[in-house]
Structures are given as C-alpha cells and as structure tokens.
C-alpha cells in the first residue's frame, strides 16, 4: 500500500489537504450539510445536537450555534432548504423537525410525525415546497408546504421492501430518488395520469445495501454508493435510467456517502476511513465513460467517514464527518 501516511498520490496534479479539524461533537457525527450560500454548514450526530458552523476568517470555521431542543435520539441527517431559511433534521426518534430563524434565533417551528420508527433522511425539492423523508419502516413520505409552517403529507410510498436509507431530489425537476437496505434505488414522480406519486423505476445492480445517492448539478447523472464496495453512475438513456459505469476496486469497506461538486468531481466517504475524489473521463471512440481516482486520503479520519459535502459555491472546499467525533474541512485543487 503506497504512501498511507500522507495519502497523497504521487504524480497526481491534484492536492487534497485538511485545513481544519472540528471536534466539538460528542460521539459519532452522522451528517454534514452546507447552507446554499456556502458560508455556513450544519452537522449532527449521536449527541442529539445540531451544530451550525460559520466562517470567521479565511479557512477558519467556528461553531456559533448549538440546537439541542429538537430530538430525543440520534439525529441522522440535517439539510438546508434551497432558500437557506429553513433547516430540516431527521432523527431516530421518528420525527423530522423544521427549524427557522423568524424569531431571531433558530427554533423548531414544525415537527413532521408519521413514520413508525427511525427517520433516516430528509430532502427538500428544488422549489422548496416539497420535502421527502424516509425511514426504517420501509416507507418514503412526501410532504407539501401548505402554509407558512404547515406541512401536509402528500404521499406515502411503499415501494421498498426494506429500510430506506436516503432520499434525494433531482436538481431541476420533481423527480425523487431513494435507496435502501433492499439493494435498490427507486425513482418517484407525480404521475398526472394517476393523480398521485408513483414509483417510476427501480434501479437494480448493487449487491448490498445502498447507503446514499445524489444527482449531479446538471441532473444528468445519479451516483449511488453501497455496502458492496462500489459506486454506480446512472444516466438517462432514451428516457430510461441505466448504469453507465461502476467504480470498483478502490473502496475497502462500506461506502456511506458521496457528493458531486459543480465541476463534476465526485467525493466518497468510506468506512475504511478514506476520502476519495473521482472524475469522469469519456472515451471518444466508444462513447463509454469511466471514472479516474484523482485524489485520495486513506486516513482522512481515524474511524469510518459517514458523510461528505462539497461547498455549493466554492468547488475546492469540502467537509467530512466521522465516527471519530470529528469534522474536517478540506481544500482540493
């Protein structure tokens, strides 16, 4: 194994450098999410706290706000709304909280209840009017903002046969993706013929739990990562989503999360403690695509990486969080 200590790849034109380590959380940190303006991010975890981190000076992020009055159990995911005024948090306590700053400070002003047990993920649609949540109860729920602080359940989708791990919206249409312990990724749309949300397609190919999914900024690609140690890139071909490439042979344990930046670089967070960045390469002759590992740190954290997120404004900045209780801010160029 070459150069494990520095994690740098010899001859690589790219450099991946940790610029700050943040260790205010107690215990496992499950998720990080950037504010859409890129000047703040939120994190959450086992300690039932949501922490908001703001940039104080260049490369210096400071924990300014801690929200503890929302959930009784682990907070699995936090996500900012597209407008940046709301923060949603999904918890093992079975609820999803919507936080806003109308009173001057962040408060939980709506609680979405309905799932039978752990809520694992929450995602805002690009228009900010729809939310999706998913749970170990195998269902995906779609919520509609009907009033300022009122959310109605618009659909309960029971397409998965197991625990649903994550939900993610398409960046510019009302297409929802979900992934599951049942090894599949499913796509949902509001079908005008049925007058209801329906499962459009099931993407099969992963051999174990699919932990995370994300559309790239163009919406042309969907990446999924799995306990089968692979990442799959799905592309729409003649109205059907098909697996265009499988990234394999790079990850040694479960891949828990992934994130695309606006330049098309794909970062992965792995249970082998590694952070890796890939870039698509097209073969002009055959028209096929492949993915090249352009940067890697095999000891990005001292334990499993649970989440990775690129800054939405600065495509050179990303954040990771880990079972080791830490968050790290990275510079990639």
């Amino acid at each position, binding site marked *: 194994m070459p150069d494990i200590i520095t994690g740098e790849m010899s001859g690589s034109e790219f450099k991946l450098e940790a610029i700050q380590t943040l260790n205010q959380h107690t215990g496992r940190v499950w998720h990080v999410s950037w504010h859409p303006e890129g000047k703040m991010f939120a994190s959450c975890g*086992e300690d039932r706290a949501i922490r908001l981190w703001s940039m104080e000076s260049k490369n210096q992020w400071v924990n300014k706000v801690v929200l503890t009055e929302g959930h009784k159990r682990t907070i699995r995911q936090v996500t900012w709304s597209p407008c940046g005024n709301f923060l949603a948090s999904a918890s093992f306590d079975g609820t999803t909280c919507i936080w806003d700053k109308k009173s001057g400070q962040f408060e939980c002003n709506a609680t979405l209840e309905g799932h039978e047990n752990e809520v694992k993920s929450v995602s805002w649609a690009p228009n900010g009017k729809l939310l999706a949540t998913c749970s170990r109860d195998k269902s995906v729920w779609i919520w509609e903002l009907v009033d300022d602080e009122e959310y109605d359940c618009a659909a309960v989708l029971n397409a998965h046969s197991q625990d649903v791990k994550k939900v993610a919206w398409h960046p510019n249409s009302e297409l929802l993706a979900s992934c599951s312990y049942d090894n599949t990724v499913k796509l949902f749309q509001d079908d005008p013929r049925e007058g209801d949300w329906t499962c459009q397609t099931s993407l099969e190919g992963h051999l174990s739990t699919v932990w995370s999914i994300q559309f790239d900024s163009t919406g042309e690609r969907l990446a999924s990562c799995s306990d089968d140690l692979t990442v799959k890139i799905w592309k729409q071909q003649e109205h059907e989503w098909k697996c265009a490439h499988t990234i394999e042979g790079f990850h040694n344990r479960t891949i828990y999360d992934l994130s695309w930046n606006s330049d098309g670089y794909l970062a992965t967070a792995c249970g082998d403690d590694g952070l890796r960045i890939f870039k698509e390469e097209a073969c002009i002759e055959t028209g096929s695509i492949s993915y090249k590992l352009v940067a890697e740190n095999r000891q990005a954290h001292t334990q499993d990486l649970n989440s990775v997120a690129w800054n939405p404004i600065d495509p050179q900045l990303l954040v990771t969080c880990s079972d080791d209780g830490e968050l790290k801010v990275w510079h990639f160029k």
Partner: protein
Amino acid sequence: MTSRGCGTEHCCQQNPNPVIKEKTELNVEDKCISEDKSSQGEPLTDVFNNKIVFDLIRNIVDPEHPLTLEDLKVVQEDLVDVSDENNYVKICFSPTIPYCSMATLIGLSIRVQLLRSLPPRFKVTVEVTPGTHTAESAINKQLADKERVAAALENTHLISVINECIPARSKG
C-alpha cells in the same frame, strides 16, 4: 439468574440440551489471566491477538441458558481472527441450533462487548459461522449495518437485555 431474558417466547429455551464444552486445564489458566486483566479495567496490552479478543467475549452469557458462549461452543478461539496491524477483528459465532431466533441478539451482544472493550481503531466484523444458521446472510447483513446497530442500542429495553448477557467482570 432465572429472571434473565427478554420476556418474549423466544427465550423459552429452544434448545434445552445444548452440547457443553468440556473445560480443559488450559482454559482454567486462561480464565485466571483474563480475570487479572479485567480487574485492571482493560487489557494490559495495546497489541491484540485472537487469544486476547477471545477473552473479551468468552464470558458473554447465552440469552437462553445460564451458560457462557464459550461453554456452549457458540464462540471458539480459532474462530476469532485478529490482525492488530491492520486494525481487523472478525468473529464467527455458531448458534447452538440452526434456527435459533436468538442468533441476532447473540451477535449484537458480541458486537456491543467489543465496542466497549476494543480501541476504536479496530474494524469489527461479527458473522454467523457458515452453515450454522438457516438465516445466515440476513443475520450477517443486520449485524454489519452500523446504523441499525446504533438505533438498536438506543432502545433501552434491548440494551438492558444485552447488559444481562455481558457479565460485569468483562465489561469494558
């Protein structure tokens, strides 16, 4: 000891006559060593091998019998695979009967005990010994899913059942 159990029907001794391991002289010696270590609160060494890791799990009690996993041959030293330099620990456990409904709970107890007593640098895998359970792959998948394990460990009832299986002297 009679009050032990999770209060469900599963606990009513599916296998009333399990095969019990005959203890050898060597085991008795090992036990003395392991108790010495436990009295310090944690193993004396920073370097782990399969013997030391086996010592951490051998005294876990089966949820159905007042016997240890070692007594029941559910865990065996040669089914503990440790590579200290690679931070790798893999335990295979063998349920006493192939349809044992307690298998997931036994696996979870092993996982919790190792979580409490091994340094966090270790990547721990707990699996059913191939061929010893009818639902082998389903059990292995559940035990490997750290999100499900984390959620289960926030269940106060379940954690109290597990705590009863993990004897005080080997708690981390």
